[in-house]
Every structure is written in C-alpha cells, then in structure tokens.
C-alpha cells in the first residue's frame, strides 16, 4: 500500500510501485490535467511538483512520490488564480492548450525560486517544455507578467 499526498489530499493506493506517477494521476486518481506527451521526459507536458520541485511525472515512479507532497495543475491554486494562471488568461496564451498545464507547472517552480527572472532564466527553466503550436513568445511574456503580479502581491 502506497501513501500519496496529492494536492493536499491523502491517498492510499494498492499499486505497482514502478508505475509512473503520470498514469497514477490520470488513470487511478482521475486527475487528467497532467498530460501525456512523450513518456520519456522530453516534452514537459506531464510536469508536476514533487515537494516543490518540477518533475516529469512520466518518468517518476509512484514509489518515489510516496510520502511526498505532489501538486498538479488542479492543485496549483484553490481558485485557479495563481499569478501564472491569471497571466496566462490575461495574455490569452493558449492555442490548442494541451501543453499549457505542463508549461505553467514548470514556470511555477521558476517563479517560486526566482521572483524576478531574466529572459535567460525563463529560457533555461522552460527549455524542457515543447509547444508545437508555437506559443513560446506568449508563455515568456506571461511568466514576466506573473512575476509582476506576484511582486505586487
């Protein structure tokens, strides 16, 4: 039996400990905001927070997440109003939208650790998140806007 804490809620799951966290979230827990894109940590669509760090849930076994705090896009904010979510809506970033949860989760760790990220900081933090629609420019601007919203409190 594995104990998980996902979005501040406790779960006890009887599951193969090698199962990637991604599929536990999606198939077992029913949190589908975390997306499958590549399965080999190359696209970032599955990014979640494990004890505040951005991890690719497609290659993170559920046993590694056991007893730790997992946060998914559904738990990033209570009312969907994290500065990044506000900024994403303000700049209407999304096209197809599929990769955006992963983009936001990667950006959230950056903003937590770096209140005033430079262009280079943003590039470095976001390099692992692919967007085929090509919304990178807006994502970049949205992260800057979110940093501003965050600084203003």
């Amino acid at each position, binding site marked *: 039996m594995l104990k998980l804490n996902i979005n501040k809620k406790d779960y006890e799951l009887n599951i193969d400990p090698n199962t990637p966290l991604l599929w536990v979230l999606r198939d077992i827990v029913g949190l589908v905001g975390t997306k499958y894109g590549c399965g080999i940590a190359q696209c970032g669509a599955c990014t979640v927070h494990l004890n505040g760090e951005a991890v690719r849930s497609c290659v993170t076994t559920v046993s590694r997440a056991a007893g730790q705090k997992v946060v998914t896009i*559904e738990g990033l904010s209570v009312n969907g109003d994290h500065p990044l*979510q506000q900024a994403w809506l303000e700049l209407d970033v999304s096209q197809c*939208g599929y990769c955006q949860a992963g983009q936001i989760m990667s950006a959230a760790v950056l903003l937590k650790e770096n209140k005033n990220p430079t262009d280079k900081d943003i590039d470095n933090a976001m390099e692992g998140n692919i967007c085929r629609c090509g919304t*990178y*420019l807006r*994502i970049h601007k949205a992260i800057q806007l979110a940093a501003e919203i965050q600084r203003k409190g």
Partner: protein
Amino acid sequence: MEPSKTTHSRRSFLRSSLLAGGGLMISFSWLPEAVKAANGIDAGVPGQWSELTGYIRITPDNVIRILNPNPEFGQNVMTSLPMIIAEELDADWEKIVVEMGPHDNVKLGPQFTGGSNSVRMYWKPMREAGAAARAMLLQAAAGTWSVPVEELTTKAATIFHEKSGRSATYGSFATKAAAIPVPKEIHTKAVKDFKILRKAQKNVEGSKIVTGKPLFGLDYHQEGMLIAMIQHPPAFGMKLQSFDASQALGMPGIKDVFSLKLYPEGFEQGGFDTRTFNELLVVVGKTTWEVMNARKKLVAQWQPAGDTKDTMAGRNGKREVTVPGELESTDSQLAKMEAFSKQPAQQLRKDGDPESAFRNAAQIIERTYNAPFLAHNCMEPMNFFADVTDEKALLAGPLQAPGWTEPTLSKILNLPPEKIEIRMTRMGGGFGRRAYGHYLSEAALISRKVKAPVKLIYTREDDMTYGIYRPMYTATYRAALDANKNLIAFHVKGGGIPEHAIHANRFPAGAVDNYLAEGWQIPSNITIGAFRAPRSNFNAAAEQSFLDEVAEAMGKDPIDLRLELLKRAKEKPIGEKNDYDADRYAGVLQLVREKSGWGKPENKKYHRGVAAYFCHNSYAAHVVDMVMKDGRPFVERVYSAMDCGIVINTDAATNMVEGAVTDGIGNAFYGRLSHKEGKAEQNNFHRYRMIRHSEAPDKIEVHFVQNDLDPTGLGEPPFPPVFGAVANALYKATGKRHYDQPYLNPPPKTATKPENKRPF
C-alpha cells in the same frame, strides 16, 4: 462593405422553433450545393453532407447559448465562430454561453477543421442566423409594445424603445419570437458597426485549459472503460506474420490480446481513410501502464508485405492502386527522386515559348530544393474513445472532420449513420493529422471485439512512426534572364514521394511571359496526409528562396522584384487562371516592408530575409531578422503582414500568426522524419528535434491589412513563407544558400547541387 441586405437563396432557409420550457431556437439551414457554391470547396468534400445549421438558443431569463459547430484544435474557432453570431444578434459577448456542438452535419453543417476554412465557411450563415434572430426578437417586441419596429434599437441582448422609455431583455421576448416567421430578407450589420468582431475576445476555454479541466480526447472517461494500445509493424512495407500472446495475456490487468484487421478485403477507401497498416496487434487491459507493460511482452514475427493493392473510391468509380513493398531508406528515396527529376514529367501549365526563351537566355539560374517527410507531432498523441455494440456506437475524441469518418465507421461496423454518435473533444493539436480517422475506426472495432467501452491510446512512438506524414518533396526551379537581366522565362519541375507539391497557377505564373510547370511523383508505402498548408509549406520555401536568388542575380532588391512581377501580373497578366490577387499579394509585401523598416540603416545588424506567399485564401509576408548567437543562427525578430480580410478576433489572430512563425522556424531548422529499411528513424522527441523556448523569436510583430473583405483563414497561410524567409536570412547570415531542409539538421545525403548547364 455596405450594410448588406441578404436575401437567402431558395436553397437556403431559416427555421425557428420553440425551446422546450419556452424560448427561441433559431437554426440556419443551407443545402449542401449552396454550401459548396458559396465556399468554392470542391476536392475532398464528401457528397453526403446535408444541411448547414447554426444554433442560437435563448431562454426566457436571457441566457443565450451558441453552439460551435466546428472542431477546435487550437485555431480558436470555439470562440471566433460564436462571436460572429453574437455580433449580428447584438448580444453581450461576456454573457454568451458557448458549447461544442454534437456531430450533426444535417443541423450544423460541414463541421470540418481544415484548409483554414472554418471562419470562411461559416461567416455568411452565422451572420444571417444572428441577424435573423435579432429581427424576430424586434418584431416580437414591436407587437407587444404596439410600436413600429423601426423605432426599436438593441444593445447587449436588450431591446429599447426610446420614445416610451421602455426596455426589455431578448429573453423576455424569446418565446413570442419563436412563433414569428423567419424574415424573408435579412439585414446584416455594416462592418463599421461591429462591436464584438474586430476586437480581442478571450478564448472561451482559456480558464479550463489553465486549471487542467478534462477537455481533450485523452481525458475522456467513462465508467468501466478499458485501455487499448496497438502494436503496428516496425517498418513501412512490413506486415504481421504470427504472434504469441501468452506472456502478454498473463500480465496484470490484461483482458485481451488479438490481431485486428481494419478494413475488409476490397474496402473502397475514401480520401481520408488512409491507414498505413491494415492489420495490427491489440492489447486491452485495465490501465494504461498495465497495457504498456504487457505490450512489451508481445512476441510477434513480422514479414515484408510485398506489393499490395488498395481499392480507392473515386468520382469515376473505384480503382485499384498498387502500394509498392520496398523497405525504403532516405538515401534510396533521394537517389530515386534525383533519377525521376531527369525524366519527362507531366506538364501542368505552359505559357509562351519557354523552350526558346531558355535557349536564347543570356543567363540561366537553376536550383534544386529538397525537403523531408515531416511528422505532425501533435502534442496529444492519437487516441479515441469507443463504446460499440451490435446496435449502436458512441465515439469521443479528437477529430478534425467527423463527417469524413462516419461513413467509414458505418461500413466497417455495419451500422446506419444514425446509430453512430461522434463527440468532438478539444484536440491537442491537429495540423491536418486528425483529418485521417483510422485511429477512431480502430477504437470502434476494438470496443466491439471486447464488448466494452475502450479508449485507444497511441504512445508517442506509435504516433510518430505510424506515417501520414508531410510528403518528401523536391523541385528544380529555373529562371532565364536576357542580356539586360530581365526575367524572360520561369520553369519549375517538381516531384515527390508520393506526390509533387506544384501549384502551377500560383505566382509567379501570370507574371512571366514564358512559363512552364511540370510535376512527377513516385509511389511509396509511406503514407502521407495534409500537414499545415499542404504543398504550400514546401513551395514557399523553394520558390521564395529561388526568387531571392534570382533577385540577387538581377541586381534587384528582393521585395522590389516581387512587386514588379506582381505589377506585371496585374496590368498585363499572362494566362487566365492565375490563382492570386496581385494587389493583395503586393499589399502584404508593402506592409511588411514599411513595418520592418526594410532597407533602413538601423536594421543593419540583422541578417534579413523576406518571403511572401498566398495559400488557403489569405496572403502572408514575413521579414525574418537573424543574428548569430553562440555560433548558431537565431531568429531574433520577425515582422509579419497578413491579409485575411476582416480580422474576426484581433488578439487570437495575432497569436495564430506568432505560432505559425515559431512553428515554421522550428520545422525549417529541424523538422525531419527519415527512414532506414522502412523504419522511421525518429520515434520520439529525443530524436525528432522540435523548436524550444530559447529558440523562439524574442519579438514577432504582426500587422494586418485593414479592409472590409469577407474573412478568410489564418491557421495555414502564415506558415509556408516562414521557411523561405528563414532560408533567405540564413544566406545573409552564413553567406551560403540553403537548398535542403531541414536547414540546420541536414539529411545524410543530399541530391545533386545545382548546376547551370543542363540543356532544356
């Protein structure tokens, strides 16, 4: 545009009806011939489309619901199409409830996302549906208040009678309006009076996206649903020989393992029934991870399929085509293309006497361009949910054109169309890939076989190695200059696997006295499909690079040369079927020249490349500003000019162009799907290079030509010329012309480099 007084033709009709519980429902119906005539759509449109209908529902408490008919894959139709209705209705956009419509080609029209056609196709019917509803509500109010209808005005879903100071919501007249006959004449708004359109309106699903709500096919869930995966042959040209499922069946959570034949023998395939492998292995189990693990335990033997036959449905009856069995490699494909390029080809267009012109030329410029197969790489891999019994079928997932797959389902499931329900989820990208519904048909057959609801999931590897790629293309361009460096002849001979990309009637056809376009193609077992701006995405790279080189040889500025040719095409066009409007083409070039400060000294630090193209009814021009960064070319800025007529949603349109530019740079620099002995050499993002954050431009400035022309699409048109502009900037940055895509990731072997000696 003047206030339009639209008399709908005898073939179109509007219907209104009372909603259960009161309220008005207005539908606009339009018979299929009228749809086709109005939209100029011909090829690839199945004949079974019926009526076109846009829905507006208004409840007595003034809730207005608009159904979006067309599948959403990121082009923002779920917002832009309802905006059109809301505008004519004079509703309060912020209070409109938008819902994705069901698949119903009778009530909701063609319902296909592709060809940059959504807005163009629905523009007129949606305007008329909104305007008719407004007129009926006004009439209901006039009757109730006993005032002339002319004295009434509307604003934000409310009707006002200024003289008497009365006002009431649309909702309060909705039930009464439903009993009023639909007006014979419909007055749509003057463009200058638009309040909702031509402004920035936010994506109606934006907040669901950023909070991770279930929206996509892969998120679709039904209680008791099983997960299925396929195992397709490891290479194009291979097929299943035998398999042993015993180990896989013994794995936890596994329900069934079997082989599945998609189409029966002799099945007549329509244009969008493309499938690479007709027989697949299928693993069905409880969870995705269990199925993935069990699939690894499959023991399968594969064998060369040899030459096979497909039966294709066609307008002139069915025909058999041979699919060659060769296990192809990129090297052999390039060699084959080179050999074919020297053979006589099909003449596609000829003006004047190109043979003599080339014979008498003072200078001939000849260049050959190559481009590889490309995988779509939609971020959401192919998947579909199916719950199929002997009586009915429910399907849900990402699909660009349900109406193109439903007839196929009907045949292979032996169910009448009315027993098949297809629900369209939001798509995690499409780019043409999801017009081909084989994965939906596979899901349906799997569900019926296991007698349970099933979600079929392709892994990234399944998705990338399955095929339905952008074809592999080549084209040789030749230009003849006279002693005064005038362009006297132009020749393009293009080919590809398995099709060529040549649009014979496009620019510069019409602008050159002596012109020849030819095409040839090589059959292959590697399947292809529409990929964001099909064919144009190659032509705009090759032709626009070539024109840059021709301009250089002529000693002209590349924009000036294009404008001169366009002037010629307008004033004294050669030939009759020139497929572009020279003024609009020139318009985007002039706009991008102005906005980018083309030729201004302050931009000297940039290696600048320009290109323009017309496809899918809209015009695009880009100036790409490249710098060398850490020894690598980097596109720092891009200026874009677009002409797509009226811009429906300004910020979303800008986003679409920014995305197309970024996607274009990525594919031009890195995009490549190669083969070795039939096997795709790239199977995931560690091998298939996609553009990433740090490689996207720092600035993309998008400008739209302001006019009141009926709107055309934006999903595709800005994409193709990015390739040409990037190639031309690369030349400035590196001093070297780039003829082979991808520009920064060259294929192992390239076709022969240009020589200027070949006799005509």
